[in-house]
């Protein structure tokens, strides 16, 4: 009973948060509501006993990605945004239409029995052990590719940031290094 109330609270918070992401005027509020949504989704994971997923969701999304977002918002000092121009209005309303449409369609798919019914008797719980074995055996190549992707992303980010440095100031250490040489 208690869990059920909690569950509905989290569901409400998740939907509310995601709605506010779209509706909020200031970027920073959007970001904060996004964090709220992510945390409630993590809570939903906990309710489903997926502790690993919950922890990773918080660590990676809330702990790293969203901090980056906040960092950029603060760096760019984004305030309230102006309304869309006249030209974009049809896009906006059509987007609403199609968005609602796709949501309705997928929900229809869910209830039309595409998804296999859950095994009501305690399905074999998914532990870290299982996931680790799976990733390092069957999903080894995706795993390696993801690693390479991360590496590429890191290099890309460094390159993007680096050119900025070369044109502008150099760090104190670099200056000192040059002086040392």
């Amino acid at each position, binding site marked *: 009973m208690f869990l059920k109330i909690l569950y509905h609270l989290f569901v409400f918070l998740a*939907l509310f948060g995601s709605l506010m*992401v779209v509706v909020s005027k200031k970027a920073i509020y*959007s970001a904060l509501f996004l964090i709220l949504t992510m945390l409630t989704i993590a809570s939903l*994971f906990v309710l489903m006993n997926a502790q690993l997923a919950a922890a*990773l969701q918080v660590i990676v999304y809330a702990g*790293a990605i969203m901090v980056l977002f906040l960092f950029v918002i603060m760096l760019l000092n984004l305030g309230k945004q*102006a309304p869309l121009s006249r030209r974009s209005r049809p896009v906006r309303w059509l987007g609403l239409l199609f968005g609602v449409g796709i949501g309705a369609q*997928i929900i229809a798919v869910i209830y039309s029995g595409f998804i296999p019914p859950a095994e009501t008797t305690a399905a074999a719980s998914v532990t870290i052990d299982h*996931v680790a074995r799976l990733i390092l055996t069957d999903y080894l190549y995706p795993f390696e590719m993801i690693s390479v992707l991360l590496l590429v992303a890191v290099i890309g980010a460094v390159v993007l940031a680096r050119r900025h440095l070369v044109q502008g100031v150099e760090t104190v250490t670099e200056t000192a290094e040059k002086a040392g040489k």
Partner: protein
Amino acid sequence: MEYMIPGNLVVAVMIFAIGAIGIMWRRDAITIFMCIELMFNAANLGFITLAQSLGKPEGVAVFLFVITIAAAEAAVGLALFIKIFDDRENIEAEKLDLLKR
């Protein structure tokens, strides 16, 4: 547990739809980016729900991949935004239409 499976999936779909609509409703690129993250999250919720209910670790594995991709995307995307901001003092998606030319 049982009430969670269709419930979570429906929630996931709704969040997904909200994210998709948000992409078209918002003006600055960074919020659009956040809406994409929202859609990622919705997908994650679906994956984990199915993984837990069917007892299949594959869902969690895919969840891990999604998270990693999101992280990579955030790093590069935000770096790009900073560069764009340096270049033209705003990051409004409407004005980023160089692809047209």
